[in-house]
């Protein structure tokens, strides 16, 4: 059974590997992301209100808006949740076979990093998922790349953290400094069977604009091409580097320096940043609307 919006927000973790991995990005976007959890707590933080009766009233309208499927908020949650599970599926299956047989470093020897093409498709499909979810939440037609690009410049808080994690964990770490060019090249040279064989794509393909896989591949490539500049600018303006990111991650994951691609695979399996920050974005928009409508 699907969960209510207040359950999703109340159950967001305050610690663990997802939260720690995102906190390691704080140096790139200082102070942008506080891990806001708890439904009432989020209402207080977003609106600045303290009156309990008013908070309850805002919360009730937000619950009702989420429950109305036609409003798009449930679909956005589904996208954020599904794209994350799809991408980690392969790794989780590999990991399940190793648990109990190896030490952690032994496990790392046995996990196979994704091939570059698969990683490139993952990155670009996740980016398109952000675009589609953004349109669902904000009520903009689903193929509106221009509106999304305009809004990216205004991204802050948990939305900016999600994009930072996308660039760093799915781009820079597994693919290196030229990740954007590399991924675009890989996506442009992909055919529909590459796309259809990709678990991340399969998980969300129904909501990607386009009538056929060929159309959808075209949309993915076009969206990635349009957003590439933003991603490259994010890297140069924040000074993010593969070695710097790895250094920060070492605070809580043990690995040797030559294991960048393995760390990418490990993050892919265990760090649920899309789902986590997706819920945070979604509830913020719901609360903003609810407080305006009551």
């Amino acid at each position, binding site marked *: 059974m699907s969960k*209510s919006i*207040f*359950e999703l927000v*109340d159950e967001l973790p305050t610690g*663990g*590997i997802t939260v720690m991995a995102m906190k390691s990005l704080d140096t790139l976007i200082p102070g942008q992301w506080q891990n806001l959890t708890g*439904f009432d707590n989020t209402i207080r933080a977003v*609106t*600045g*209100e*303290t*009156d309990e009766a*008013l908070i*309850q009233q805002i*919360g*009730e*309208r937000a*619950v*009702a*808006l989420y*429950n*109305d*499927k*036609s*409003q*798009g908020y449930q679909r956005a949650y589904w996208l954020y949740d599904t794209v994350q599970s799809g991408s980690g599926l392969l790794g*989780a299956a590999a*990991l*399940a076979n190793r*648990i*109990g047989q190896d*030490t*952690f470093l032994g*496990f790392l020897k046995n996990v196979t990093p994704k091939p570059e093409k698969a990683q490139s498709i993952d990155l670009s499909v996740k980016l398109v998922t952000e675009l589609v979810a953004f349109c669902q*939440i*904000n*009520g*903009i037609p689903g193929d509106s790349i221009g509106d999304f690009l305009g809004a990216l410049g*205004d991204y*802050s808080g948990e939305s900016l953290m999600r994009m930072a994690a996308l660039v760093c964990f799915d781009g820079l770490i597994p693919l290196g400094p030229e990740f954007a060019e590399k991924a675009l090249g890989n996506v442009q040279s992909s055919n529909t069977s590459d796309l259809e064989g990709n678990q991340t794509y399969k998980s969300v393909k129904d909501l990607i604009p386009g009538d056929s896989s060929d159309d959808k591949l075209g949309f993915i490539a076009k969206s990635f091409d349009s957003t590439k500049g933003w991603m490259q600018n994010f890297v140069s303006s924040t000074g993010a580097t593969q070695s710097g990111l790895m250094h920060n991650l070492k605070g*809580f*994951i*043990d690995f040797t320096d030559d294991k960048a691609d393995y760390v990418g695979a490990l993050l892919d*399996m*265990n760090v649920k940043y899309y789902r986590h920050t997706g819920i945070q974005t979604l509830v913020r*928009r719901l609360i*903003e*609307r609810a*407080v*305006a*409508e*009551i």
Partner: protein
Amino acid sequence: MIATPRTFLVPALLSLSLVVVGCDKKSPSPYDQVQKATKGQSAVSKEAVNGSQFNRYFPKSANGFSVVAAQEKKGFAEHKVNKGGKNVAMLSISDTISTPASASKYKQSTSKIAGFPAVDQGQNGTGVLVGDRFQVKAQSRDPSFTKQDRVTWIQKFNLNGLSQLK
């Protein structure tokens, strides 16, 4: 070799992530009742005006404040007011045809803004009801944006235009 807490922690977390957590008893939430009442229900009236029709009545960017479209749904449109890259306020128009209680609170109104009944809500919100139907609100998101600023910004909407909208 004795495992350090850190080397032990990672495999432990990894294994945990694979375990399907069983049923846990949920404590009651103050939202259980509304969840039950609204599940699968429509929250927006079919008669509501599309949010895209509201955009033209919003104030424009001026004097260092930029007004940026944020949400546009059936019966609702919201724009952010940013200053120096920081969000300082939210401006919205909503169709109270979906939320009649939102309109009825203006019956108790004792003040007016630009001739329309006005109310303050909580510490950060001020609204007016236009044409007995459309709620126009300004909400502070930063202490620099005062109650007086909210009144000033509500006056910047094309309220008379909006009152003609059907």
